[in-house]
């Protein structure tokens, strides 16, 4: 087999951080989903937490349907936050290293009590207004990147495949336009 160096370089350019961290991270996200599904039969998505948690403080009928699941969804989200912290205390802090983990150069690192933490440089207005649309869209569209993208696609659900194709296409278009307008980061 002849490897074309120009082609290999072109492929390497598309993956400046390799694929190790993405593939391993994806396997772990899938494993977390499977642990919950195997024990409980629940294909858990992350965005329902937004509405189920609002049921603690709001009597709107729309949120009442999540009263039964709101407690465990809070536990699920607490696990996700602390899982992120566990990553920060190990790989992000450099305490554990692996050839499959590429640390990258995005954002800013800072230290608290010996743990290397990370903060984004993306502007708050983008996060806030984008967040509002994410909150509206995921709940009207019946799922987010984990509900549709992981559980729904894993279920070979046509609804989820269409959902993923829709939000992925629109997100690419939006990010390209925002970048073309000179907004960075």
């Amino acid at each position, binding site marked *: 087999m002849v490897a074309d160096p120009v082609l290999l370089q072109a492929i390497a350019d598309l993956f400046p951080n390799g694929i190790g961290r993405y593939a391993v991270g994806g396997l772990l996200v899938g494993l977390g989903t499977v642990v919950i599904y195997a024990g409980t039969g629940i294909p858990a*998505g992350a965005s329902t937490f937004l509405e189920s948690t609002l049921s603690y403080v709001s009597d709107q009928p729309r949120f009442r349907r999540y009263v039964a699941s709101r407690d465990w969804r809070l536990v699920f989200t607490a696990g996700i936050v602390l899982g992120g912290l566990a990553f920060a205390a190990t790989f992000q802090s450099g305490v554990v290293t692996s050839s499959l983990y590429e640390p990258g150069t*995005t954002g800013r690192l800072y230290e608290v009590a010996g743990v290397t933490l990370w903060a984004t440089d993306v502007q708050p207005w983008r996060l806030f207004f*984008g*967040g509002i649309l994410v909150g509206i869209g995921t709940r009207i569209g019946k799922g987010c990147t984990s509900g549709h993208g992981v559980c729904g696609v894993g279920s070979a659900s046509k609804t989820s495949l269409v959902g993923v194709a829709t939000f992925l296409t629109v997100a690419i278009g939006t990010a390209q336009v925002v970048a073309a307008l000179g907004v960075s980061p």
Partner: protein
Amino acid sequence: MSGRHPLFKPLVFVGGLIFGFGLGFSHMARPEVVLNFLQFDDLGLPFVMFGAAIVSGVAFALLPRLREGAPLTGDRYERRLKPFDRNVLVGGAVFGVGWGLSGICPGAAYASLGVGNVTILWALGGMFLGAYAQGYWRSRSETRDAAAAGAD
């Protein structure tokens, strides 16, 4: 909910830990990395989403054949199938604009807080505001529809 197996929440917590660790490790908890994918500067993201979908897909296909029901709930293993309607397209498009603008989605936002990104509270605040707004509108229109149906 009362009457649930005592290991129900501990298991959900462990699942969440692994899920959140994976989002940190894959850098999906960093909006910059998601935006780099959407701008075609680093095409790693599909390995995360589809890698996770393949793992869950294997479990969703195998578990119903291995066991009658889930040990902690007794519930049957079912796939995640939701009915298709216009909302999937409208909601998906709105989510897409938000994701493309911010580079963050709900699960990744929770994990982002965990890796130390306090700034992500802007996105989390926005998400709760958006989820509340749509819940408020839909609760009102459902009540109105119910009232209209009752008047017929």
